[in-house]
């Protein structure tokens, strides 16, 4: 599903964000990306959805050579992905339903599909009753659920989440991560960058730890802090 070989990223200000990253992720995996701020987690996610281009190396996502994608091919590639951020990135002047529907409308999805798919996504995140509410009428957790609904409304093969619980309290964070787990069980591969130790330790999923732009640990059922190989 995802194959990275010798991937490096140096920004124009000469900051080395990634260096010699090799990584393989199978379809249906649930992966936590952990590590200190500046370790390269967000850059790695950004490379996967072609937010930035790698400086070197090979990046294959679902059989697509992401680095070789031409500018006009990027939108079609992104339609197969769902991306979630810490700051939700919702449109404040649209209600919940329209924020989710927006993702389908801008890709000119058939009209008859929009209502059905938005309804399904809102049902999955438990916000059907709040479809008409504006983002400022929702709690942080609910806003993140809207962002998740928008990310999954297009049935993505891969969901990338960059600190999705960064602005949320522990209980809400746990709910959001359970939701991410449900999405994973429905078939989407999920990669989630996080600093949330409690959730990572509790869920015991694959953990990839990064530091200074390199992968320093990759465990099948890992925890936030390294505690030795698991048999």
């Amino acid at each position: 599903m995802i194959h990275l070989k010798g991937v490096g990223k140096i920004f124009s200000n000469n900051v080395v964000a990634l260096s010699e990253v090799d990584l393989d992720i199978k379809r249906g995996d649930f992966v936590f990306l952990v590590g200190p701020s500046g370790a390269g987690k967000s850059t790695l996610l950004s490379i996967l959805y072609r937010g930035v281009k790698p400086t070197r190396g090979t990046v294959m996502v679902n059989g697509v050579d992401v680095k070789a994608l031409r500018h006009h091919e990027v939108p079609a590639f992104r339609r197969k992905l769902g991306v979630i951020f810490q700051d939700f990135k919702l449109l404040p002047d649209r209600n919940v339903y329209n924020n989710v529907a927006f993702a389908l409308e801008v890709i000119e999805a058939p009209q008859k599909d929009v209502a059905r798919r938005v309804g399904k996504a809102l049902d999955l995140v438990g916000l059907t009753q709040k479809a008409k509410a504006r983002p400022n009428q929702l709690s942080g957790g609910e806003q993140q659920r809207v962002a998740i609904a928008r990310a999954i409304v297009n049935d993505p093969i891969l969901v990338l989440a960059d600190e999705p619980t960064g602005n949320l309290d522990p209980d809400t964070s746990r709910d959001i991560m359970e939701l991410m787990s449900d999405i994973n069980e429905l078939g989407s591969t999920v990669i989630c960058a996080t600093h949330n130790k409690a959730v990572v330790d509790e869920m015991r999923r694959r953990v990839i730890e990064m530091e200074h732009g390199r992968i320093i640990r990759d465990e099948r059922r890992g925890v936030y802090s390294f505690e030795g190989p698991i048999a």
Partner: protein
Amino acid sequence: MKARSLKLIANQTLRGLLRNFALMALVIVAACMFVLGSTFAVALNVTNVGIQLQKQVEIKAFLKEGAKDYAAIGANIKAIPGVKSATYVSKDEALKRMAEEYPDYREVIATLPSNPLPASFDVEISDPKSIREIAGAVSGISGVESVNYGQSYVEGLSSMLQVLWSFTALILVAMAFGSAIIVNNTIGITVTARRNEIDIMRLVGASDGFIRAPFVLEGMIIGLAGGLIAGLGIFFGYEGAVRWVHGMAPFVPLVTAPWARFGLLALVVLLGAALGAGAGNNATNKYLKD
């Protein structure tokens, strides 16, 4: 593009226009277009003054006393390249004109024992720059005593107009450039304020054209509206300005024809719309790069 997508783009545009930044942009664009349009109006009239002054440049060809075949002389003058027309002025006509030009001396003119003025030709030329050569050719025609074209006046006028036009063109270019930058930056602010929207559209896989459309449309509408406000100000202010200048300097030949006002209005509106659309496009492109 589907009708529903056009509706979504229109909706996006409308949402953008209803924000505070759009009103700020409208005011700034209107101010820029007003200054630019006014500069165009000044340039138009400076050009007209030059054209009118040049039109007044003509050669006076005085005929020898007793030259009778003025039709042949006139034909010879008209045959010179660069001569637009040659109008015969008889001795009587010359005296009549003098009386009209100097009414205080009418009585003196009436008591003259004989008409001292020679017959002549008023020679209009198409290119004032060639006046020296044409005057030389006219003076060589048989029956022509002498020519007069106000040598020093014509040469001074040409130099002055050259400087005036260069200066006006320079100011016009500077104003157009300055206005384009201000409009570009102002519309750019309205796009930057909605950067989140662009990011979201990119993330969900909207095409560049789809993302760009509402911002280009919004810029165009702001430019069009700003241009219209400025254009109407110029349209209605122009007549007053012409009256004011005429009151102070009635001899200055200003453009008073209606086409000038309508032309300035159309120019400012179209320029505003084009600059606005271009600014929307530029600002959006900044966020669509890889």
